[in-house]
């Protein structure tokens, strides 16, 4: 059935309710809500979050924003946690102690700190063991919850509280880790990189594929943070759009090892467009710092070309 946004929203009630305490204009709640909408209404879900903004602000005792079972867990073991629940579920179902006629899906939401850095070992382990689960990383490019410290998802030259741009260093000194490709190295049945863009079609379809593909699946979603990135809260969708149109955040998926690039901008915008609205890159536009933009652009171009080559390789 073709995707119809209005129908999806009207017919599938939100499984991530209002009343959570994320910041105004946060990019993560629309992502989480739309991913959960990809579940069939009759299917149950068990959700867990790695420590991060989403965990601490959606599950403040005695309130929960999740209409599904939710497990509050730690930074380093979110994937291990849900993997254990999945294993128990499979076992109980086999023993006939659970009803056979309905499905339960297992989903983890982790920020980039809990996924790229601290939780990488448990994520890698769970993926390798082949549990039937989905790991969703909402990547906002730093430890936003604790005060914008750099993570390995922070792009090069970004100004954060632990990589402050000044006379000694030009912001973060290392380029970001490409986690989607790290996960692709686990040879998973489905890996996707997406963003909440336009009518959320890409996000929804990838979520649906990830949830209903048997085996471990991974989704990486860019989710802008107005506080940490330094842009006005109402610019959320503009930032998302620029991330895609500049190829900073390419939309692609890897199905059984085969790369598919879902969106190729007809007119690839220069990276300045994406950097300019964000305060964390402000120093890059000072006179004498042109080399930073050049280097950033080169990095983006290299990664984009690499991706196109990988797709072409798969078509041979």
């Amino acid at each position, binding site marked *: 059935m073709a995707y119809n946004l209005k129908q999806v929203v009207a017919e599938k009630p939100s499984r991530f309710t*209002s009343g959570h305490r994320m910041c105004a*204009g946060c990019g993560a709640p629309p992502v989480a809500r739309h991913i959960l909408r990809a579940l069939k209404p009759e299917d149950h879900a068990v959700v867990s979050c790695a420590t991060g903004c989403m965990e601490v602000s959606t599950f403040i005792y005695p309130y929960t924003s999740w209409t599904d079972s939710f497990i509050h867990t730690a930074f380093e073991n979110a994937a291990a946690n849900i993997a254990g629940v999945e294993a128990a579920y499979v076992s109980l179902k086999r023993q006939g102690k659970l009803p056979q006629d309905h499905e339960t899906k297992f989903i983890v939401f982790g920020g980039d700190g809990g996924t790229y850095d601290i939780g990488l070992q448990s994520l890698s382990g769970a993926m390798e063991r082949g549990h039937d689960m989905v790991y969703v990383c909402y990547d906002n490019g730093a430890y936003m919850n604790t005060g914008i410290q750099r993570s390995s998802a922070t792009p090069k030259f970004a100004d954060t509280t632990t990589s402050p741009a000044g006379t000694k260093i030009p912001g973060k000194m290392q380029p970001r880790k490409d986690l989607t490709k790290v996960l692709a190295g686990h040879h998973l049945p489905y890996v996707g990189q997406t963003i909440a863009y336009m009518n959320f079609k890409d996000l929804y379809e990838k979520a649906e594929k990830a949830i209903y593909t048997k085996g471990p699946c991974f989704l990486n979603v860019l989710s802008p943070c107005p506080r940490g990135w330094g842009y006005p809260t109402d610019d959320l969708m503009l930032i998302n759009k620029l991330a895609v149109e500049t190829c900073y955040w390419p939309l692609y998926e890897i199905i059984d090892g085969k790369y598919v690039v879902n969106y190729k901008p007809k007119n690839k915008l220069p990276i300045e467009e994406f950097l300019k609205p964000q305060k964390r890159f402000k120093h890059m536009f000072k006179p004498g710092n042109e080399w930073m933009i050049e280097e950033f652009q080169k990095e983006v171009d290299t990664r984009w070309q690499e991706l196109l080559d990988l797709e072409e390789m798969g078509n041979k």
Partner: protein
Amino acid sequence: MQNKIDANTPWEEMTPGGDIYEAGNAKEFKTGSWRSMKPKYLSEKCTQCGLCFPVCPEDAIPVNKEQKREDFNYDYCKGCGVCAKVCPFHAIEME
């Protein structure tokens, strides 16, 4: 029961393990008081294009069964303005 729990509740009256027994009860926590700007819905300009409701982080734009959006739910709207910015028809004004 656990909704009556607040900062002054003694530990004996809390739920064991900090469990929450009711799904999605965050709805009882109104975040509308966070708002400093207020979106105004101009229904006559609205074409029901569907760009505003998925982007709302608060789910504060109700969509009815006829797939049409309704006026804002100010109980939860935090006034971020994302909806006003994405509207191509200027049917949402921030004031």
